[in-house]
């Protein structure tokens, strides 16, 4: 509870109750914004790996498979440690509820993680090629939902800046995760072998920036939390790093390994910062009753 900050007991302002939040702030820990990033990275890497396999780019396919594996292994660890009762993480798989993006996501992560791990193990042991192929397909198919569902998870809340961003947020996440996957592969491959991934990284980064811009524009006054306080700082870092990285990759990524590494790292950092910005903006908007009230008042006016 916060100490009294109003000037009198009379200070119940006309549009709030002593300035207290209407919503409860999400209790999620830093694991969640990290997961938003790793989940996206893992999912998009699965897609990238499969696409590369189809196109015959075995090296890219293999690299992305392992990037995906890393993401798939880190993500559940992040999620489990975020739980209030980590020992009960298996309860996530107790039911399947389409009304709960978290339930759906848990199953996607379970499927995707299992497939990617199977594929990677087969690949490493060079055995069971059919199983590996099947696993790669599952991993690739489940990768896109894995990358995107977290946007739905955030949107499916009463948090104004998340819920109102529901039309753009999946695209922001899709583009961003593509950029991450591309950047991660680019980071690990010599420039020569990273042409596709480099292009994906640049395209994803630019698409992501565009979608974010469009999102903020449509959010109107609800864009404020994205631009203020911690969320604002993360947002500025994200934009700067992503655009700088994309620019570097586009200009010199094909020629210079250090440039490719730096550019890729910048994009990855930018994408991570963007997830943090979105996360923090949600907390900030939940904390301030004004966003909830203004949004709903506007809706009531429009519905009249």
């Amino acid at each position, binding site marked *: 509870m916060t*100490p*009294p900050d*109003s*000037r*009198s*007991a009379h200070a119940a302002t006309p549009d709030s109750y002593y300035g207290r939040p209407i919503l409860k702030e999400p209790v999620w820990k830093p694991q969640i914004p990290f997961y938003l990033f790793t989940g996206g990275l893992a999912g998009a890497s699965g897609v990238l790996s499969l696409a590369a396999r189809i196109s015959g780019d075995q090296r890219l396919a293999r690299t992305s498979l392992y990037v995906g594996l890393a993401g798939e292994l880190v993500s559940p660890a992040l999620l489990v440690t975020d739980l209030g009762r980590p020992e009960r993480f298996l309860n996530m798989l107790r039911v399947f509820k389409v009304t709960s993006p978290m339930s759906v996501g848990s199953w996607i992560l379970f499927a995707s993680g299992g497939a990617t791990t199977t594929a990677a193990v087969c690949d490493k042991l060079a055995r069971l090629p059919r199983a590996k192929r099947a696993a790669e397909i599952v991993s690739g198919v489940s990768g896109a939902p894995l990358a995107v569902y977290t946007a739905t998870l955030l949107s499916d809340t009463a948090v104004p800046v998340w819920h109102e961003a529901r039309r753009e947020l999946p695209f922001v996440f899709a583009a961003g995760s593509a950029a991450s996957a591309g950047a991660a592969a680019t980071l690990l491959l010599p420039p020569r072998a990273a042409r596709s991934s480099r292009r994906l990284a640049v395209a994803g980064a630019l698409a992501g920036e565009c979608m974010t811009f469009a999102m903020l524009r449509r959010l109107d006054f609800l864009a404020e939390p994205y631009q203020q306080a911690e969320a604002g700082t993360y947002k500025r870092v994200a934009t700067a790093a992503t655009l700088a990285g994309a620019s570097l990759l586009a200009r010199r990524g094909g020629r210079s390994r250090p440039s490719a590494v730096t550019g890729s790292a910048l994009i990855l950092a930018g994408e991570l910062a963007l997830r943090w910005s979105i996360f923090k903006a949600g907390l900030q908007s939940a904390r301030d009753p004004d966003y909830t009230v203004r949004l709903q008042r506007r809706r009531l006016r429009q519905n009249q």
Partner: protein
Amino acid sequence: MGSNMAENHPVGFQWVVEARERGAQVIHVDPRFTRTSALASQWVGIRAGSDIAFLGGIVNYILENERYFLEYVVNYTNAPILLRDDFRDTEDLDGLFSGWDPETETYDPESWQYRGMDMHAASGGRERGFTQVKGHATGHGGHGAALSGGEPPEEDPTLQNPRCVFQVLKRHFARYTPDAVAEACGCTVAEFVAVAETLCSNSGRERTGAVCYAVGWTQHTVGVQYIRTAAIMQLLLGNIGRPGGGILALRGHASIQGSTDIPTLYDILPGYLTMPHVGAYDDLAHYIESNKSGAGWWANFGSYAVSLLKAYWGEHATAQNDFCFDYLPRIDQDNSIYKCVVDMFDGSVKGFIVVGENPAVGSSHAKLHRLAMAKLDWLVVRDLVDIETSSFWLDGPEIETGELKTAEIATEVFFLPAASHVEKEGSFTNTQRLLQWHHKAVEPAGDCRSDLWFYYHLGRIIREKLKDSTEERDLPIRRLTWSYPVAGAQSEPSADAVLAEINGWSQKNEPLSSYKELKDDGSTTCGCWIYCGVRADGVNQAARKKPHWEQDDYTALEWAWAWPANRRLLYNRASADPDGKPWSERKRYVWWDEPSGKWTGVDVPDFDEAKRPDYVPPDGAEGPEAIAGNHPFIMQADGRGWLYVPHGLVDGPLPAHYEPQESPLRNRFYPQRSNPARERYDRPENPANPPGQDGRYPFVVTTYRLTEHHTAGGMSRSVPYLAELQPEMFVEVHPELAKLRGLEHGDWATVVTTRTAIEARVMVTERVKPLDHGGRRVHQVGLPYHWGSKGLVTGDSANDLSGLFLDPNVHIQEVKAFTCDIRPGRRPRGAALPAYVERIRNGKVES
């Protein structure tokens, strides 16, 4: 008025809300806007301590505009009675009544009597602090004066005689005009008139109005007269003894009513019998003769007194030895708690037993209580948890300031954990005089024991120790009837057996069923005559729990038991007109049924069942027979409601507005500033803030309770669920005062009087409003008083600020209106605190 019922009596307040929903007008007149105000139809904010002016204004409004209920007033009140020619009113004597003796600072009430009557006060000490002995007794339920035949000698039914009560009343209240009220109370004329008009238009044959009050009225140096003013108003409006009428005292504890009926009070015995006074009575017969009244139910005083003595001393009480009347100790001075504490401070009290009370927080001038307790030889405290009273020697405020040192306090303190009401059985008597039995839900935990257990076994052990004593003084204790069945592993005495003794037994050892059966020849026993019948037929009537929806009448007579005789409404004969017919169909309650020749109705009639409305007492009739058939007030010797009190009060037969002891204003009505007869202790330990506006203590302060805490907090500050709802001591100030004194909402402030200073969090709120008194702006400060040094939530005690200035009739302290200063910031700690208080007293601190 004088009550914040919604917050302090929330369970009873549901019926107020219910009445409002059915169209009743609810008016709240109080210095503070509270939850009661929030639910009322109208709130009027007045200055604390100005209620008599407000009520007096209503009385004047009723009289001036002839809004009184004439038929009721003429027949049922003493309005037509003529007063003695030597009576002088405050109108004549600048705010004093006749009989004032400036030497002793007391009144001689001789001149206040009815014309031609000899109703002199009983003999007894007249020294300061113990004025008329009778006054004390009557403060708790007046006995009438010697009067037979039921009629006073002279009356004027036309109400025209200038010496009749009605005309005296009219002249007395004439100066309480709406303008004067507005100036004294700080409200507007319109607010006042709206209240007066609402009351008048809701009274009469078809309608009635009720007044609820609590300690907001009693805790003043003129507290009794506050209630008297309301009584005058209600009698004029015809609102007494009728359904929906009355003056309802809301009591502050589960059984405050019970603890005056069966008193743990010094000046009365059970059933409001007078405690005998030193040298006043030659023998029992003299005692009875002096205290009984010729007419009315007090004529049977002897039966009540003898039955009590029989209950106390059983077979040892015989007609030959005056039923052990000599065993009763005698009083000759004020032995009320505040006087007792002053004596304690002076060292004459050796031992002190405190049960279920926390004077170190809850009593006015709590600091003096703690200093006094440090001078005891021993102290026994029984409570649910360790409270400030039992730990004053360890962590009291005076330890912090160095005024007391733990190592130097010689008091031996015993703390005994007590059982709560759910851990024992017994009866409580509530505001409505309803005795309700509560059952034991669980056994007391650990060493907790009921107070019944404590006193029974204490008495048993003392009797054991003294059983071979040859001292004459030990006879009363050795011969006391003291055998109650005990049960269980803890030898818990039977509360039911005690209740049976209270109810009383006939000679054949059968439970009595009514106080009418009591005899003065020693053949009956009864521990409290007004409770006689609570175990009629050997059945615990107080334990009846039949809900009202299973009963025919809304009065629900089969729920618990009300004294006397299960009557729910006293003086209910007044609900019918002089001929015995209901005043109106709508307000039918008790009426004369000619075919059966009896009084009947939805309640037990408070009248001789078969006494016809046209009964006229024969000459020489005594007791109830001396009350006429059209006089409902059967406890009064004249059978009438007293607009004017010829006898029984020590500070005047009529109420007059006096300022509190500490007030920033002069008296708007009289040159006499405060109640001249108020009780003071002029000694260095009890300094008073100077009256008037000299700048040192410019604000009016009033104390109050919160719903979430129980009085001194012993039962609530230790309970996390309650403690979290009101965790800190705070002080209410208006935004204007906050600005004036630089107080910030949520910050700390120090409230200071000449006695000490306390700190509290600042609550800036418009619930306390500044008032205009003829151009003077007076700010008020509100202080809840629940906190102390123990419990989950701690804080300074508001009662440390107040002094000992008492109502002379009932010795109740004035804490609802005194003066203070308030300054931003926390108070100084340790020895710096008394120094700070001293500097302010000397005007050495800039405000």
